[in-house]
């Protein structure tokens, strides 16, 4: 866990209790998945990510300006499948501001097996304004946010750009009884995944690893986790399709360049370790 500075001792103990007995690297990996699927991807409880006893890296849940806009890219493959209609139908409703149709779609999505209480990875809107304004915003946001799993040559991925405020997240979190609703992500808030990169504890927020090599720490995108939000029609601010895969890249280069940027941003030259 040397690379991960934000996991508290209490959470580490909970994790270790789950992975105890792992004998090989693959064992450990699978038990990490078990931990994530059991205690983070939860149905209607609070995930470990926000439980006070695990001392999450609270991003100031109580003090954030409530009017700040948050954005998140959602794949619509499964929601549209459950709705039983294609993206074009949703687009028509979106363009026509047909709230009943949008609400009908969201009701199905919100009450399906997709929308459990796992933490949501998200970013501040004002950090991705250029990407949002681009004609190919789905791919641009995918690349900037490091959503490597939204990438395929053959199959387009319908996506929605969701936008909402701190206030809305806080209101729903209060209903859930969550004292902490915004936290910096840790390695335990995801399955083991080479596109996740922990950030030094001295940096506010996490830092998403983009799908293109970064040249400058200013290119780093702050990422956060927040508690579940029930989507409403006004949260959909864009509909599109990820039609092109991300540019070919070398994972080692991505990670090493990202590490350097994070070290510069945090002033922590000792943070982490380059991939040889």
């Amino acid at each position, binding site marked *: 866990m040397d690379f991960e500075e934000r996991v508290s001792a209490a959470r580490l103990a909970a994790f270790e209790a789950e992975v105890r007995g792992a004998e090989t690297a693959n064992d450990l990996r699978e038990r990490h998945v078990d931990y994530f699927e059991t205690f983070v991807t939860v149905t*209607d409880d609070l995930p470990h990510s926000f439980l006070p006893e695990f001392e999450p890296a609270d991003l100031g849940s109580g003090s954030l300006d409530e009017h700040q806009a948050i954005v998140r890219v959602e794949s619509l493959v499964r929601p549209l499948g459950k709705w039983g209609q294609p993206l074009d139908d949703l687009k028509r409703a979106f363009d026509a501001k047909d709230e009943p149709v949008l609400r009908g779609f969201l*009701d199905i999505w919100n*009450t*399906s097996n997709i929308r459990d209480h796992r933490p949501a990875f998200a970013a501040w809107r004002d950090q991705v304004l250029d990407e949002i304004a681009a004609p190919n915003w789905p791919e641009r946001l995918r690349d900037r946010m490091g959503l490597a799993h939204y*990438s395929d040559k053959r199959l387009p991925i319908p996506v929605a750009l969701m936008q909402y405020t701190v206030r809305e997240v806080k209101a729903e979190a209060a209903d859930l009884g969550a004292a902490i609703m915004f936290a910096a992500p840790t390695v335990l808030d995801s399955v083991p995944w080479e596109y996740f990169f922990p950030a030094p504890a001295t940096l506010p927020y996490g830092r998403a690893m983009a799908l293109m090599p970064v040249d400058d720490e200013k290119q780093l995108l702050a990422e956060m986790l927040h508690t579940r939000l029930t989507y409403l029609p006004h949260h959909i601010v864009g509909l599109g399709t990820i039609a092109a895969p991300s540019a070919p890249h070398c994972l080692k280069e991505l990670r090493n360049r990202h590490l350097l940027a994070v070290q510069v941003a945090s002033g922590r030259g000792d943070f982490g370790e380059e991939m040889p």
Partner: protein
Amino acid sequence: MALAAVHGSPTRHPWLDLFVQSPIAAFGDLLAGYARIPPYERADAPDAARMLFGGLPKSDPARCALGPAILGWLEQRRRVTPPVGRPRQQRWVREICEAFEIVALLEVADAAETLRRQFVTWSEWAARFVLSPARDARAEYLRMVALTQPLVAALAGPRDPNDLAPMWLEICRQAGAELPRRYLAIGLLGLRRLQQGTTGSDAPWVAGLAHWALARSPTNAEFQAEWLALKPLYPRTAGRWRELVGRLLATKPFQDEGIKAPGWWRGDRDFDPMLRQDFRVSGAPLRSPFPADCDQEIERLHNPWPVTESRIDQLLQRHRTYVGVTGEGQYFVRAIHALGTALIWPGNDQPHDRARKAAVLAHEGLGWAPFDRYLWSLWRDAMAAGGALEAAELIGWDFVRRDPDNADARNQLATLLAGPLARPAEAETLLRDTIAAFPGNAFARTQLAELLIADRRLVDAEAVVQSAFAAQAADEATFALRARLQSHRGAAQAAMDTVRQGLERHPSNDVLWEYQRILDQGRVLRVDPVAAAPIAAPIADTTPDDPTLAPVLRLGRVRWLRAQADSADPARRQTALAEVQAMLADDPSFVYAELIAARHGLLAFNPDTMPPFAVAFEQALKDGDRTRLDALAERQPRLRALILLAQALFGDAQAAWTIANLLNDDPPVEEARPVTFLRSRLHPLLAQATADTALGIIAAKSNAIRRWLYDANESLPGQRIAA
């Protein structure tokens, strides 16, 4: 790591080769999140599966192996005990949900067809795993079935591609009551995915919406939200909508409730013209074929079968069109019953083909009226007439199980056992059991006496007749029977006295008048039993090759085993329970077998592993565990009466008094059927009970009450919409 393989997005992911080598295990890894599928590890299994399999040609080995892998994994999971504790259970349920979801998302036709064909098994199993909206295996199973209807129809799977239409309508009706409100979207989705052009409506979901509104009385805003969420997806002119809705609301179910068009559609401006006094719905009014149309066909049944069948099909297709538009099945059901009953009456050509047709129609009718007693009888009798005696018997047993308040179902089954099946001893046992369960039922007593006469056990027969009089369960047939027996043993005066007493009570009974005439002439009455209604001579006993029949036959078999397990003969009991255990070894999630095993202490039961309600109730009843009963009452509030009665059996005076009070209340409109059954059994006992006497009355009848609880609980498994 060489990333070209990942980010160059080759047409085929290398993991697929591993998958082909060991499909079930690899699919399990995919669902569990273990699969090494960079960069898709972060994706949920359905998204990952789409990326991996979605672009493959149908002939790709991995694509070919996907369906069997999903089915294999689901079969394995169905045989494994779920984990303990909510955190692990929610993951367990999630994986099941996602397996079903992948079938629909990737249109895995072979898996969809199998899961649909084994509907009862999978829906009942999935119903165990409802933890929350986000972990609801039943919802995901039903949604998968809804979405894959066109896929399955293209495979020519079900006989009728729209055979689930009545279930989708029922889900709409139950959404917000027996089922969570969110199920309305699933019911409507099912209707939206029916085969176009065969339902009689171009928008059958409109009927679903109307039936939901009729059953649930939503607010105007709630209804409009549902209506307007779908309306734009089905572009129609305003006039066409008015026509569809106007014709729908003019049908009986809505007229009976005083719904005037546009009904719930008031508020949508497209329907404003309907508010005018002079508005007339365009198009011919929807109308079901008349009963006279059916009578006309019955009069022509003597025609050659090919001609007759064609005419019947035409008539029933008109019914189907009406049902498809309105969702109202009562006329269809009546026509099926009338036609089917006439079809199995002997005397025409191709009797077995006619009987099979009647069986198929009865089954179709049960889709619209799952508890219709006439249709269950018809189904059983048509099977027998078609030569499928074993299937007929098992349908008969399942009918007894599903409808425990129906003595006729038992009596008719006894007729089948004693006659075509040539098992009079079992018929006798069943009839004696029926007399114990329904002491006021005269027919069971008469039938038993006739059975004994046929076996030349005249003394036993007379004892049965005497007991009928003692129990005040004698009708005109009982008088006639006693007279026959008395006359036969030479007690002419006693026989005449019996006939006269019978005529005082039943002066219009022709048989008694005839007996009086015979006795007046000094002749002896014949004691031979009255012949049962004839059925066509069975050909070889064959079970039809109909996959939808299998679940019913299996349930019927267990009901028969239950009867054997109740036997006083230890050897029969042991053999029956061994078969139940063998069934469970073959399918550990077979609820009805679990229930019987629990009753007899054969189940390794753990209340923390999400057992079905019926099994958990049975075990708590056996263990006398009031804490677990309380927990079950929270899980199934509609079945609270079962819990209260069980608690009263364990000495809870408050529960006994609550039950007595509930019996004095009017039953709720949608009372659960097992509760209605208990109401009918308990009412005579507890109608006059007080707070001081209720518990004592229940204690005095504890054996009978325990049996009623068994019967009520046993009626739960195998429902179309599993609870």
